């Protein structure tokens, strides 16, 4: 596509393929819910999803049976409890068996950083004595510091096929501005082969009074303007986190039929 700023439908249709490895990031803040919903509507399948905190959006995509593998570091409903669709997939293989690749936050941030830095791995002082390291030698190994001999963890880099984030603003050229909690979004942008961004609004000039980060336009593959595109997560300066909805997800997601109905009514 020639145009960088397109409809959400077109953005997902052109740049997300069945079988892709996709990182949708946003640490509590700016979670790209609308983009995730469009992936569900377009029935993109056999996905490997990457996210530090899968949150409700991945619970939904997993519950819809579109995910074959999840790479993550904390899979709960923050402050509320479980992600029941994720749990059923792991505990009962329902609606599909779900492979998992599991990290700690520090290790996963390290893996993204390595990916963004063009390195095959990152190093971490951590994981010593834990079972996560013992269970997952495919992506957690040990190296010795060549100067001190100290044993440190080596974490395999993460380089998604597609990185998807939500941001407050884009200008018409496609430069992106994010402020507030920026999580690992910068790292995902640099680590991913394709970068898709939904934004609250397209502006003439990016707000340069907000402390935040700018992502230069030539790193961005495609952009779509989606108001409230992070709800029930939030977009600082636009709307607040819908903690009430996060709490109500507990009951919606617990039962598959109720979940399916909710998805039908609210997403499909």
């Amino acid at each position, binding site marked *: 596509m020639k145009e960088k700023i397109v409809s959400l439908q077109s953005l997902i249709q052109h740049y997300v393929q069945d079988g892709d490895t996709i990182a949708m990031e946003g640490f*509590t803040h700016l979670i790209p819910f609308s983009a995730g919903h469009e992936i569900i509507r377009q029935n993109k399948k056999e996905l490997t999803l990457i996210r530090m905190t899968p949150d409700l959006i991945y619970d939904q995509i997993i519950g819809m049976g579109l995910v074959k593998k999840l790479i993550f570091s904390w899979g709960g409903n923050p402050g509320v409890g479980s992600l029941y669709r994720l749990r059923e997939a792991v505990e009962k293989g329902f609606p599909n068996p779900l492979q998992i690749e599991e990290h700690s*936050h*520090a290790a996963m941030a390290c893996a993204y950083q390595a990916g963004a830095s063009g390195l095959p791995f990152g190093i971490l002082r951590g*994981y010593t*004595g834990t079972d996560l390291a013992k269970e997952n030698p495919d992506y957690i190994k040990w190296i010795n510091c060549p100067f001190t001999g100290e044993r440190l963890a080596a974490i395999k880099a993460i380089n998604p096929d597609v990185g998807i984030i939500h941001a407050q603003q884009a200008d018409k050229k496609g430069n992106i501005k994010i402020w507030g*909690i920026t999580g*690992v979004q910068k790292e995902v942008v640099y680590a991913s082969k394709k970068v898709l961004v939904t934004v609250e609004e397209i502006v003439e000039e990016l707000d340069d009074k907000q402390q935040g980060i700018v992502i230069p336009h030539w790193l961005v593959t495609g952009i779509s303007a989606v108001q409230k595109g992070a709800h029930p997560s939030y977009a600082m300066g636009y709307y607040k986190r*819908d903690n*009430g909805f996060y709490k*109500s997800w507990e009951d919606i997601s617990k039962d598959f039929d109720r979940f399916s109905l909710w998805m039908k009514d609210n997403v499909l």
Partner: protein
Amino acid sequence: MEYTKEEMMIITASKMLQNGEVCFVGIGLPSTACNLARLTHAPEIVLIYESGTIDTKPHILPLSIGDDILAETASTVVSVPEIFNYWLQGGKVDVGFLGGAQIDKFGNINSTVIGPYRNPKVRLPGAGGAPEIASNAKRTFVIMKQSKRSFVDKVDFITSAGFLGGGNERKDLGITGEGPTCIITDLGILEPDPETKEFLLTHIHPGISLEEVKNNTGWELRISENLKTTHEPSKNYLEVLRDLQERTSNSHSQSTL
């Protein structure tokens, strides 16, 4: 003033924190205890959440680790890699404050699975920031409700290292942080034996019997020779805590949809 066991636990935990300390805060009970400390005896305590919010001063408790209230009231917000690399791993955190689903007699924490890892009976949320908080904070406090199910002889899965097999094992493996220095529960306080690193009951909350503590511990709990009774919570702490929880509850029950 009357109080619940949970209030006793939170207030006792909050009192472990010193003014001016840099504290890496987990969501839930740790966050409640840390903010209570900030609103009472430790106004200059520095609270850091793994979302990158540094020196945050929320007037209600965050539901998630990255609520807007944390960013809005922070001195500065940094990226997640920076919080883990430069702050936690870089040795800038005095106290890590953790919860968990299971803990064992050597202070190892499980927040990953009940049952076998590859075929879990219950899949829990997982590690989050805990493994590196547990290993890289100068010391850690744990706050957990005591029960036979959660205080076990051996955790099903070591998500976050305590003293591992006990004795010097943690230190010998080169883990830098001192480890869990106490577990604050709704029944008392457990602290590690200096040699074996097995957790002993060192404080019991007022009105709680030794019997009750033992019945809610999944290993043969040893009692410190020097067992003390914890101080009752004062009216002031109870009022500040209840106000905080009420403000929080009002705020979280609203959906903005």
